[in-house]
């Protein structure tokens, strides 16, 4: 079939999606500028770009969540107006948002049928959904307990629910916004298998990611966005990660961590028999032992939910535990949940896993956030008052040193992109010049330019002779930054390896709870 589009070109295949001159501004920010893009049916089309480049905005427009200021949308060749998500759903579009749109205290089934119930009564809808859910689960290996509450599910499972939601609505076009940001490698691989299946069935997939490896591995075509514009759309086979990175950031990016040999010194952090029982009585840490020396990075690998978060919370001083923890040979209090201040006084800094829930106060300005947790430090306060002028100046300096954009300390944290939010936290914690730095998921959802920068900062700290405890679900990241790697499974440390003597495969087995060899 041949169709005559507006530009008069002839195509043998109708694009599944065609966006023409889409523009969208939020106040002064031009999030999308005259964007035109075509996505062929039965392909996986990747979109990459820096934080804040406008990827999510563009997808939200396609899904009817935002309204474009101007531009047209063609679905399967016919112009379609998408004023709201209802229209998008009827046009066969499904979207998995970067921040999931799930009702936390609803069951999986309830989330799935929300908006597509058949009839006014719930029972028949639920029964029907339960049946098709079993089928879908079988077909695509998307197993989730239909009666589990969302809040009890891991993020990986929550994402499955989002995908199931789209499939249940019989979406032909599936948009995934940074789907792997929160997944373990195994989960990510499974996701890609599913995406391949879907593509093979003729569905069209739009995939946003910051991970070039994923782009290279599974997409057919890739579009690169920068500052609200599409700077290139190329077949994946004709490009390379380096080329894409350069297109994205506008400069050459070092994709490998440049690591000098470690010079480990004295034990800075010594943890013995650490146990945590949570509020509902479940044992989350079951007697964990490890230590971190000065001048080394100990990486903690593991599938999310195996006790890493609790470990960080105990060490950070806001989770009760039993056992002993010593910093510089000095035992510290772990029996109380309000020790954040004394931890910091003991030379411990902490970049938490969740920058928006823990690391930052989203409604505070960048300069106020720049001392968050340290507001009792000398120099930041004089007596009962805060030394606001000094804090502001210091924040301005940090912003420059860490290249945080926009370089305005009076902006609220909420108004920075994820990568820059992460840099604000990092600047605060690293610039304290800690004895030991705890870092949780330092590059989650952060673009490659920023990743490079963050990794360099962590290595610099190590090379200054500080101890670093790194927790990440990105095996890549753990492997490339750590000197030693401990793998956590079900509240225990399954084993410890030297980074130079192990590989993804061995770690993957440990993460799955399989003991391999000896230590």
């Amino acid at each position: 079939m041949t169709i005559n589009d507006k530009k008069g070109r002839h195509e043998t295949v109708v694009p599944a999606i065609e966006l023409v001159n889409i523009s969208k501004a939020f106040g002064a920010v031009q999030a999308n500028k005259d964007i035109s893009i075509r996505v062929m049916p039965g392909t996986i089309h990747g979109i990459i770009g820096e934080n804040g480049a406008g990827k999510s905005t563009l997808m939200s427009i396609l899904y009817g969540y935002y309204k474009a200021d101007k531009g047209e949308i063609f679905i399967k060749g016919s112009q379609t107006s998408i004023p709201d998500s209802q229209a998008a759903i009827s046009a066969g579009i499904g979207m998995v948002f970067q921040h999931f749109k799930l009702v936390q205290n609803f069951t999986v089934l309830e989330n799935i049928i929300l908006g597509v119930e058949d009839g006014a009564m719930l029972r028949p809808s639920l029964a029907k959904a339960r049946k098709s859910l079993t089928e879908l689960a079988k077909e695509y290996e998307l197993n989730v307990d239909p009666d589990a509450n969302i809040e009890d599910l891991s993020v990986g499972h929550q994402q499955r629910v989002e995908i199931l939601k789209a499939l249940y609505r019989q979406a032909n076009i599936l948009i995934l916004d940074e789907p792997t940001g929160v997944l373990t490698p195994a989960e990510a691989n499974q996701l890609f298998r599913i995406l391949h299946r879907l593509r093979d069935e003729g569905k069209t997939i739009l995939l946003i990611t910051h991970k070039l490896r994923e782009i290279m591995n599974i997409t057919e075509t890739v579009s690169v966005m920068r500052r609200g514009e599409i700077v290139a759309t190329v077949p994946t086979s004709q490009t390379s990660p380096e080329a894409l990175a350069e297109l994205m950031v506008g400069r050459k990016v070092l994709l490998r961590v440049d690591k000098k040999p470690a010079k480990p010194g004295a034990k800075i952090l010594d943890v013995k028999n650490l146990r945590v029982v949570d509020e509902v009585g479940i044992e989350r840490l079951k007697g964990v032992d490890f230590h971190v020396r000065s001048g080394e990075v100990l990486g903690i690998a593991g599938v999310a939910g195996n006790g890493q978060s609790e470990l960080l919370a105990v060490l950070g001083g806001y989770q009760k535990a039993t056992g002993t923890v010593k910093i510089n040979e000095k035992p510290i209090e772990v029996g109380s949940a309000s020790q954040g201040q004394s931890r910091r006084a003991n030379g411990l800094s902490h970049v938490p896993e969740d920058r928006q829930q823990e690391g930052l106060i989203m409604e505070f300005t960048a300069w106020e956030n720049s001392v968050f947790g340290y507001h009792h430090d000398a120099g930041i306060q004089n007596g009962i008052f805060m030394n606001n002028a000094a804090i502001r100046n210091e924040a301005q300096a940090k912003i420059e040193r860490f290249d945080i954009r926009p370089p305005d300390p009076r902006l609220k944290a909420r108004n920075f992109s994820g990568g820059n939010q992460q840099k604000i936290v990092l600047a605060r914690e690293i610039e304290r010049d800690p004895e030991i730095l705890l870092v949780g998921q330092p590059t989650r959802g952060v673009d490659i330019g920023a990743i490079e920068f963050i990794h360099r900062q962590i290595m610099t700290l190590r090379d200054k002779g500080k101890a670093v405890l790194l927790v990440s679900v990105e095996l890549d990241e753990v492997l490339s930054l750590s000197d030693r790697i401990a793998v956590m499974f079900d509240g225990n440390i399954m084993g410890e390896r030297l980074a130079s003597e192990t590989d993804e495969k061995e770690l993957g087995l440990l993460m799955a709870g399989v003991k391999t060899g000896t230590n």
Partner: protein
Amino acid sequence: MQKIPQWADVVLVPLISLLLAAIISALVIIAIGQDPIEAVKLMVIGALGSTYGWGYTLYYATNFIFTGLAVSVAFHAKLFNIGGEGQAMIGGLGVAIAALYIPWPHWSIALLGCTCSAAIFGALWGYLPAILQAKRGSHIVITTIMFNFIAAGLLNYVLVNVMRPPASMDPATASFPPATHLPTLHDLLMPLGINFSRTTPANITFLIAFLAAVFVWLLIWKTRLGYSIRSFGQSGSAAKYAGINPVKITVITMLISGGLAGMMSINTTMGEAERLILNAPEGAGFIGIAVALMGRSHPLGVVLASLLFGFLYQGGAELAMWMAIPRELIVVIQALVILFTGALDNMVRLPINALLTIIQKSGDAK
């Protein structure tokens, strides 16, 4: 959407909102067969046209500043303190006990002592709901509502059975000794050559209210404690991460909030009535909620909203005195003011925003 210029946001929007409230109020006045122009004149002249009017306006405003600040401070920690009324009542008890049972040599020392006593009593009444919330998770909205009732019962008991002079019909304490009588604005301004009306209840407490507003401003935006309070209010999980103790912050915040509410009674009990009467706060604790919300929990906003409410109170009293307008009308006018300036402000802001954007665009085009 363009961000609206600050002056329009802070000045223009509230003014237009007020105007809308006034127009609807005028319609109500017409509906009950009275002349709205006359009414407005009466209100403005009665409340602002003389030092006499100002005296009353400021007197009421003083009450609202205290309770408004009390609610605001708690709001910054995301605690909704509905208990200002009860805290003010108990604060009054503190004033009465201090004023009656301690022989003060001079009003200034008495003021200091009674203020402390009021604040301590009010704070204590805020302490219990705070500790219950922090330790037991009892919702502070319920407990403070309950504590209002309990305070009323306690005060009723004390005034009728304990502190009432035997022969008095009035459930109130004896009058405070003259040494505790506070200078009125008349006394304070006379040395400056201003002849402020002698007969109004406005007194030195008004200045204390201003100091309290400055104190709250410093506390919230300049101190470490304020920083912790705001952090805790904005994000409990982040505060936990930062090592801010939730129990401590909840309790301290409610102590300050209750203390401020309690200090309101300096104005009514020591400044005006010069004895403790039943129901002394007269609902100012609840007006404080409206004032804090309208003032966006900022001390300056609270002061301005309090002045507005003081104006409505005093202007309303004049209306009730000189026109056949029932006092309930004033309550309706207050409702309209709260509605338009507080809840419907976006109704005004959005069109103004659009208008300004158009003006700006056409300006840019030239």
